[in-house]
């Protein structure tokens, strides 16, 4: 036990010898938190729109007014007849162009279908899909306005049936993206920092050649491993605490569930991340190798975990089941926003436990065989 303590102490001295390192370990999560909390906003509003109005009538102006009143679109300028739309898009001066044909108002008055041309810059597919949906809505609403007018002209009085959706958003009523992103940062930080630190710390001894010195001491491999992992586990817990506090204080993310449960399950997640670091250290000779190998695992993990991209949208969801981060992310978000308890989260907790124990067992076995 004493021997483990000494290893821990040594590791602490080594990690925190560089005061800047301490800063970095605790400043990095805050920076990521601020970026992900404030910068991630996928709302698509204020699309820059250019207009070519070939009709110049009361109706065409009314239409343009409706488009800009929708808040989805900002009319940035009117185009001249012969201006090149390609140039406008290439220079990113506008993302959408509306062309109103010369007979727009005449057809409207005659009760004929009157087409409006819309060109959308589709290079961002997600953006364009939503823009197409929004402009369709605006056009439909405008249409409705004119059909109602027409019906009134016909002196036809009927109550127009109408269905309006009453929407309630649960768990995150304002659909604030920070409520979604900030809890997720816990998972990302824990994975990136603890696995990378562990992998590099152990490989470092091998690279510099101090591993032999450690091996010839009476310290058993398992003690060495524990002594190496415990400091990083503690760092991990501190970071979780830091982010939980910042989530509430800075971003006002609601914490509906139990903080205790969150910490307990973070412990399970740490098993998987520390285990990953340990495993990588057993297959790496230099810190550069360790770093690259860790990235090879954590980048796909983050992308496929549902951190940014909802898993329900993924074509091949099966792979995500092999990513421990997925379960941890579900746990964290559910505890924060839904107040879920272990009765709902136990399958995720179990999955984390299985992954954690498996990778730790595997790497301990490898480490024992070939510590140096």
């Amino acid at each position: 036990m004493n021997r483990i303590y000494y290893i821990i102490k040594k590791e602490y001295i080594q990690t925190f010898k560089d005061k800047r390192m301490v800063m970095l370990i605790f400043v990095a999560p805050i920076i990521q938190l601020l970026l992900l909390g404030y910068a991630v906003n996928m709302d698509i509003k204020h699309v820059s729109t250019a207009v070519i109005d070939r009709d110049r009538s009361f109706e065409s102006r009314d239409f343009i007014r409706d488009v800009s009143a929708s808040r989805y679109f900002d009319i940035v300028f009117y185009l001249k007849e012969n201006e090149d739309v390609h140039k406008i898009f290439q220079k990113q001066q506008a993302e959408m162009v509306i062309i109103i044909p010369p007979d727009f108002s005449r057809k409207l008055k005659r009760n004929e279908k009157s087409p409006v041309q819309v060109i959308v810059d589709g290079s961002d597919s997600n953006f364009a899909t939503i823009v197409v949906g929004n402009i369709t809505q605006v056009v439909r609403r405008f249409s409705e306005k004119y059909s109602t007018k027409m019906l009134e002209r016909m002196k036809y009085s009927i109550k127009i049936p109408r269905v309006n959706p009453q929407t309630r958003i649960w768990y995150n009523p304002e659909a604030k993206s920070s409520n979604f992103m900030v809890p997720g940062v816990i998972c990302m930080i824990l994975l990136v920092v603890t696995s990378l630190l562990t992998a590099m710390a152990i490989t470092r001894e091998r690279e510099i050649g101090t591993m032999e010195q450690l091996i010839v001491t009476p310290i058993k491999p398992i003690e060495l491993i524990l002594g190496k992992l415990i400091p990083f586990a503690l760092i991990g817990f501190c970071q979780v605490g830091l982010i939980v506090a910042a989530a509430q204080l800075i971003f006002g993310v609601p914490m509906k569930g139990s903080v205790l449960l969150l910490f307990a399950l973070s412990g399970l997640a740490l098993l998987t991340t520390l285990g990953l670091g340990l495993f990588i250290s057993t297959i790496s000779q230099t810190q550069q190798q360790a770093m690259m190998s860790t990235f090879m695992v954590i980048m796909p993990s983050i992308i496929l975990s549902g951190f940014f991209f909802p898993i329900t949208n993924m074509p091949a969801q099966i792979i995500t089941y092999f990513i421990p981060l997925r379960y941890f992310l579900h746990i964290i978000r559910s505890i924060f926003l839904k107040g879920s308890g272990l009765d709902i989260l136990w399958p995720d907790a179990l999955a984390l436990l299985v992954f954690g124990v498996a990778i730790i067992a595997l790497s301990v076995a490898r480490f024992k065989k070939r510590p140096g």
Partner: protein
Amino acid sequence: MTNRILAIAKKEIIHIRRDTRTLMLAIGLPVILLLIFGYAITFDIKHIPIAVCDLDMSQKSRELVSMFAYSGYFDVVDYIPSVNKADALLNSGKCKVVLVIPLNFSKMLYRGEKTSVQILIDGVEANTTSVALGYIQGIMQMYSSKILLDVLNKAGFSNQIKGMPPVDAKIRVWYNPELRSQNYVIPGLIAVIMMIITAMLTSLTIVREKERGTIEQLIITPVKPYEIMLGKILPYLLIGLFDMLIVFIVGILVFKVPFIGNFIYLFIFAVIFAVCGLGIGLLISTIADSQTFAIQLTLITSMLPAFLLSGFMIPIKNMPGIIQFVTYAIPARYFIIVLRGIFLKGSNIFILWKEFVFLSALAFLLMAVCSKRFKKKLD
């Protein structure tokens, strides 16, 4: 001079070659990211699981449900007999939306009264939620106007309503008419990958010598500091450009991303961008005393911004002013505009001159700071 630079480059290449795994990983990472972004990720939001609680059970209510089902945006995964079940369903994540059609829905509709349906949405995934809300609005609008036409038809106005809806939007999407997200993501991926590889690998080169104690040996040789610098980054410049080629070729051949621009322009920009990435890495290497520190610093100064502040996934326009301001210092921001412009819109250097100026300025600035710090450190 050139000889000494080449000698240092050769030494670095030997280091890299000896460590074949790092080299493999430097090539493997782009491939893995390509596969993930090409096959496993779509930005499109479709097939949102929805549960229906139809208390009306009429023809009209079923029509509404089928409009949801056939929209392509929603998959009806469950029918529930009462609203009470909604809570458990949403909490378990089996569905993201519950549509509740009230009793008397069709009766009210026939009487021409306003009716409402209730929609419960799981708001955890904020972005999906807002997009789903838009879809729902659209579907309800379509449904409403269909009912209106029905009513008018029945009232004998079929002649007058021929022109309905009066305005018809003819929408065309340029540059990416099928709205494939790969066309958008893969060009951007070039910037992300190049930034990761160049900054990560160079950030370790000099610290490694410091950590192992070989830096002193380098200093006492007649090699000048800037020669060490250039020699150190040359091999990584090649790796970075090689990674660009991989993504470029695989993107076009496998993922069928259109490329209508000029490759020469792309290449020039890629070199300038790589110099930025190498400059950041080198700068970190001169600051850091251990490889662990260097990596952590690289993570937050180059990799995270390349993903988050570059416009790769998150539109810069929506960011708060102060963060938007920060993005001007992120090289990837300019390169991503360039990549998408050249790939999809065929933009040329005259259209991208602003990006060219900013990117070159950043590259120059980074290199200048590096060589200044480098001298101080070594003297």
